[in-house]
């Protein structure tokens, strides 16, 4: 006896089916066929969850939008860090079916787009039959019971310094996989805005550290870099427990953070 799939024509029907069938999980392009839930419903083919609308300062993307459709918007119309992250996910054949919603909502392990979207300060919109609420992706843990992810709002940030790195094995997701994102904007020789995010077995983002870094005069001195390294390490250690992260991954994060700071010297 195989697993059960349910079908919805549109977002409203999807919410209704979820309410009437407790335990049903929403999935995206189903590229993780080996770990499908017992009862699932895919966003594949639901048109009102596959929208892309471009605005002056942000783009609204439906969770059922495939990574290829998102890439097709073009390099000039997407934040560079997001374009780079999208391009390093699997291959075009997989990206034709994998969705942004599936990438964001992956349980247990955060996938490639999570860190760049945290750095970009993306907002997630959830809907149920009666209400809609918005949450910053930095606070996102899981889709609330009875709700669906209905929209992802991505600010069109074009930071002066934009660094994205994927760590872990290429083309597959393991416990060693994670992504790192760093964005920095400068004004009159000082740091205006800084965003640093890391996502994999756990997520790391520290407003405290970003405030500590913002406002510093450029170029950064060696002393500044040492201070920043110490501060980011302290915040990172607070967020990551030994069960979550290996020493190798911890060191990879520190190396990437130092590399990012050095670009401002």
């Amino acid at each position, binding site marked *: 006896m195989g697993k059960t799939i349910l079908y919805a024509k549109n977002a409203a029907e999807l919410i209704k089916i979820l309410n009437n069938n407790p335990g049903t999980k929403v999935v995206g392009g189903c590229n993780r066929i080996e770990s499908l839930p017992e009862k699932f419903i895919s966003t594949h083919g639901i048109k009102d969850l596959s929208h892309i609308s471009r605005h002056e300062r942000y783009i609204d993307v439906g969770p059922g939008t495939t990574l290829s459709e998102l890439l097709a918007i073009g390099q000039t119309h997407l934040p560079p860090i997001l374009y780079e992250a999208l391009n390093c996910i699997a*291959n075009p054949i997989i990206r034709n079916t994998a969705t942004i919603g599936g990438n964001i909502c992956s349980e247990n392990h955060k996938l490639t787009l999570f860190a760049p979207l945290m750095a970009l300060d993306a907002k997630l919109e959830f809907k149920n039959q009666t209400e809609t609420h918005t949450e910053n992706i930095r606070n996102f843990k899981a889709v609330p019971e009875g709700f669906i992810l209905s929209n992802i709002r991505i600010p069109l940030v074009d930071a002066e310094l934009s660094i994205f790195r994927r760590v872990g094995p290429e083309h597959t997701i393991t416990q060693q996989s994670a992504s790192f994102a760093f964005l920095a904007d400068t004004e009159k020789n000082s740091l205006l805005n800084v965003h640093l995010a890391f996502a994999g077995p756990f997520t790391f983002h520290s407003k405290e550290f970003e405030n500590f870094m913002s406002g510093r005069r450029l170029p950064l001195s060696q002393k500044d870099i040492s201070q920043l390294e110490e501060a980011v390490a302290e915040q990172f250690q607070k967020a990551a427990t030994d069960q979550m992260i290996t020493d190798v991954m911890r060191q990879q994060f520190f190396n990437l953070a130092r590399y990012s700071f050095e670009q401002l010297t």
Partner: protein
Amino acid sequence: MKIPVTLNGTKTILDAHADESLMKVLHKNGCPSVKSGCSSGFCGTCTILLDDKPAASCKIPAGIVRNCDIVTLDYFTKTEEYSNIMAGFQKAGIKLCGYCTAGKVFSAYQILKMPKMPTRQEITDCVKALSPCCTDLETLVNGIIYAIQISNKRLKRG
């Protein structure tokens, strides 16, 4: 469960479990070109066109393709696009081994459909992860560029 699809231009009902891999289901339904390779969606051997886009059938549960249009290499070989792609490959000296044909042909098809002429780098990015079993990357990119030229020439003549 019964899954209605259009398979190679014919409306068909697939009989499969919702979580069964589409690759196995298609193979059982008379599409010998859909083969099992790495089972991770990278080698390209199980590639099909799902609603006119290349997809790794080993990673797709049969349940989600309800009402979709599926084209396998068995049928695609009868199209003009296939002739253009093979002519381009031949010009570049590519002799496909058979294992990877679907991945390479359908990736080339997706590139041929791009609205504007892709750069060499863009073509390389699209095909670099495919199995390099019988063709090196540079030659494959050359083959796709030749296929684009041949396709454009035929379009102009048409």
